[in-house]
């Protein structure tokens, strides 16, 4: 019964979102229609929520007559992972896509603000059509409510690697980000249809892009953190196609967050902002295609179904075709706004956008190049981390060098000399870091430059806060806390980018790893530490059997215990690794237990990694996420104050 309610609610959602699209796009000046449109958009969201809750209920009740539940759940699973399992697979995640899209449509419809009726209703209409696309795909190609007859007695279980809090939150955050990019897309198309992209329009655009960017940032960071401590490979980013699929929309969203500021504050770059919104959503859809079609070799396991891949590609074609078509036709009609000098806040934001767009383009080329080569009959190839490290790192490096200068410059015409004078202490700190890193690492130039750029960013962020606090009367230190939230949020995000840069460069360039075979009692020297294997014993848990290795780490005269496990869950034939991580001042010592070594007397394989400053990566990403949230709060406050 419950699955039928869900399926019916989903069909109802489709019918109503078609109505939302039609009513929104049909031009109208009457307020009664606006009220109807708002009501329909809200009903769409409620109907889709009913469908989603139905699926969760099927999971909670372990109703194995529903195919997705039987394939992905198990009665032994803790309740929280039964619920999270609802969106931990293809069908459920598509339903989540529909839900997020319809809820965003309802929020967009409910919060019209000072938007003109025309742009508002068109945007709600386009959002309705986006929901229609997702619903058609879900209902006809990946129906989450499909039944099994006869129903199996027990489910196939969820991959134990995925039974993890970070991973339960990772897909919904990413989806909020991906689907969040659909709202700027809808607003951009609405602006093109109406032939107007003014400052009021950009004001409506900003919170959506900021929210999408924040969700993508947090989602990617959670996924990266999970990969780091759960997979046991010692790394946090692998330039895997599926990772790139989330990184490209992130770059576009990051650019859009900045260009929308220029459009709102100065009225310029409207045309570019619209183009970026279209491309950002295109990249989000492309990401879904890459993940769902299985066309690229990936460490992420997803079912390969060519029909689904083609369907996503068709939807992508429709969205981009409509977007670029409208853009080519209508964009020249948009009015041009005031210009700006080559050195000004605007020009710096243009450079930011340019750098991010070029970086996204390079990542795109590297990601789809294997597909192009294969289609051209050139055989199977893989484009690995070396390509991305040598292309993306210098481009983003150039961009980051400019970052601290941007916020210091004034709008229209900036005084670069005065700004550089104020930033002199940060620059000095950067140069000192560069020289010190060069000396400490035997002249490894590229990573030293990277770390120095990170320090320049952090110091530059603090210099900006200091400069702002010194304005006007009174003691600067006392005024720092009273700075506007918008200033704080931006500084925290920018300092976070610096912290992330320091961590990412240090980890990538200065990590060390070693695979050893140790019998209990034996030890090995690694990364200034003495690592001794004490015992290897059984340590079974509630729904798994495990082998636990206890180690002692001697470092600087201290002896610290550390343990790592291999677990075999009864529901899965493959073992998982519980990594032992010891965080110290110089980074993480990371130990993963391997298999018993063949033909040896009791030796076990251990993988040892030393990851310098790896926690900076996650701390930096967290700061960027917090910056995004604070910035959203600042926007909400300002909106309230002006209302």
């Amino acid at each position, binding site marked *: 019964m419950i699955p039928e309610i869900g399926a019916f609610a989903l069909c109802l959602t489709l019918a109503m979102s078609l109505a939302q699209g039609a009513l929104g796009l049909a031009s109208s000046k009457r307020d009664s229609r606006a009220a109807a449109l708002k009501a329909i958009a809200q009903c769409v969201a409620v109907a889709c929520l009913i469908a989603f809750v139905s699926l969760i209920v099927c999971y909670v009740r372990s109703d194995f007559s529903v195919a997705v539940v039987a394939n992905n759940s198990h009665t032994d699973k803790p309740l929280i992972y039964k619920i999270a399992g609802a969106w931990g697979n293809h069908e459920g995640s598509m339903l989540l896509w529909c839900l997020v899209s319809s809820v965003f449509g309802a929020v967009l419809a409910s919060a019209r603000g000072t938007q003109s009726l025309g742009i508002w209703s068109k945007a709600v209409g386009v959002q309705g059509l986006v929901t229609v696309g997702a619903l058609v795909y879900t209902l006809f190609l990946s129906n989450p409510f499909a039944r099994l007859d006869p129903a199996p007695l027990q489910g196939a279980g969820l*991959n134990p*690697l995925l039974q993890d809090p970070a991973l339960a939150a990772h897909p919904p955050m990413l989806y909020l980000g991906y689907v969040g990019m659909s709202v700027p897309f809808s607003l951009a198309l609405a602006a093109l249809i109406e032939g107007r992209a003014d400052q009021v329009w950009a004001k409506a655009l900003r919170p959506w892009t900021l929210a999408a960017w924040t969700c993508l940032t947090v989602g990617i960071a959670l996924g990266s953190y999970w990969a780091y401590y759960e*997979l*046991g490979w010692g790394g946090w980013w692998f330039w895997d196609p599926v990772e790139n699929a989330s990184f490209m929309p992130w770059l576009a969203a990051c650019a859009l967050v900045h260009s929308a500021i220029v459009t709102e504050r100065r009225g310029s770059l409207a045309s570019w902002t619209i183009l970026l919104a279209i491309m950002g959503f295109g990249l989000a859809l492309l990401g879904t295609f890459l993940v769902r079609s*299985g066309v*690229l*070799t990936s*460490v992420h*396991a997803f*079912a*390969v179904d060519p029909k689904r891949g083609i369907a996503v590609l068709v939807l992508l074609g429709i969205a981009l075709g409509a977007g670029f078509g409208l853009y080519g036709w209508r964009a020249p009609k948009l009015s041009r706004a005031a*210009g700006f*000098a*080559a050195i000004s806040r605007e*020009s710096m934001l*243009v450079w930011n956008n*340019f*750098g991010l767009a*070029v970086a996204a*383009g*390079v990542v795109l*080329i*590297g990601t789809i*190049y294997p597909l192009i080569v294969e289609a051209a009959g050139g*055989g*199977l*190839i*893989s*484009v*690995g981390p*070396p*390509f*991305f490290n*040598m*292309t993306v790192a*210098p*481009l983003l490096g*150039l961009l980051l060098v400019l970052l601290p200068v941007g916020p210091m410059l004034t709008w229209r015409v900036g005084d670069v000399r005065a700004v550089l004078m104020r930033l002199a202490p940060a620059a000095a700190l950067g140069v000192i870091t560069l020289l010190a890193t060069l000396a400490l690492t035997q002249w490894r130039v590229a990573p030293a430059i990277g770390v120095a750029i990170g320090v320049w960013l952090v110091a530059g962020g603090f210099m900006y806060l200091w400069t702002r606090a010194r304005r006007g009367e009174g003691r600067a230190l006392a005024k720092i806390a009273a700075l506007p939230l918008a200033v704080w949020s931006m500084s925290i995000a920018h300092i976070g980018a610096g912290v992330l840069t320091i961590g990412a460069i240090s980890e990538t360039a200065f990590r060390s790893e070693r*695979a050893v*075979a140790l019998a209990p009692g034996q030890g090995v020297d690694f990364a200034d530490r003495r690592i001794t294997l004490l015992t290897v014993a059984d340590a079974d848990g509630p729904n798994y059997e495990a082998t636990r290795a206890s180690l002692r780490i001697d470092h600087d005269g201290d002896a610290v215990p550390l343990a790592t496990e*291999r677990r075999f869950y009864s529901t*899965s*034939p*493959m*073992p998982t*690794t519980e990594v032992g991580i010891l965080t110290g001042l110089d980074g993480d010592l990371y130990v993963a237990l*391997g*298999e018993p*070594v*063949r*033909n*040896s007397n009791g030796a076990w*394989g*251990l*993988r040892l990694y030393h990851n310098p400053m790896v926690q900076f990566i996650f701390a930096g990403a967290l700061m960027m996420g917090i910056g995004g949230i604070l910035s959203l709060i600042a926007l909400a406050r300002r909106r309230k104050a002006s209302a």
Partner: protein
Amino acid sequence: MRRRDQRLMMISAAGAVLVLAAALTFAGLRDSIVYFVAPSELAQKAHPGQRIRLGGLVLPGSIHRDDNGITSFVVTDGATRVDVRYDGLLPDLFREGQGVVAEGSWSPGQAFVAERVLAKHDERYMPREVVEALRRRGEWKGPQ
């Protein structure tokens, strides 16, 4: 500076960044892509010393580990067998009869020296290269 000069300056700087990006991309695609070959294509497709990915199944009973910790095993696609040597710990899911991708280099008359060994990372996942190799030999039984 006049407006036209300013615009010219910005456009030329943007052009310079684009040229840099294009140069990096071409250099990267030339130097750091890795071709995939099946065991039976190794001889004609891979130059000695070239970095490649060899994909196939681990031949049952072929895994040996010597006193120096070097593992050797045989990768097969049903037609040709290739000896592989690897100095390091094998991934958790490395199994006899299962799909594997070894990244490294090879020269005629010698074993393939792997620097990295990738096994499937969950029971449903098979490296696409391996699927392709088995399909070419007509031994693939999974979905198309």
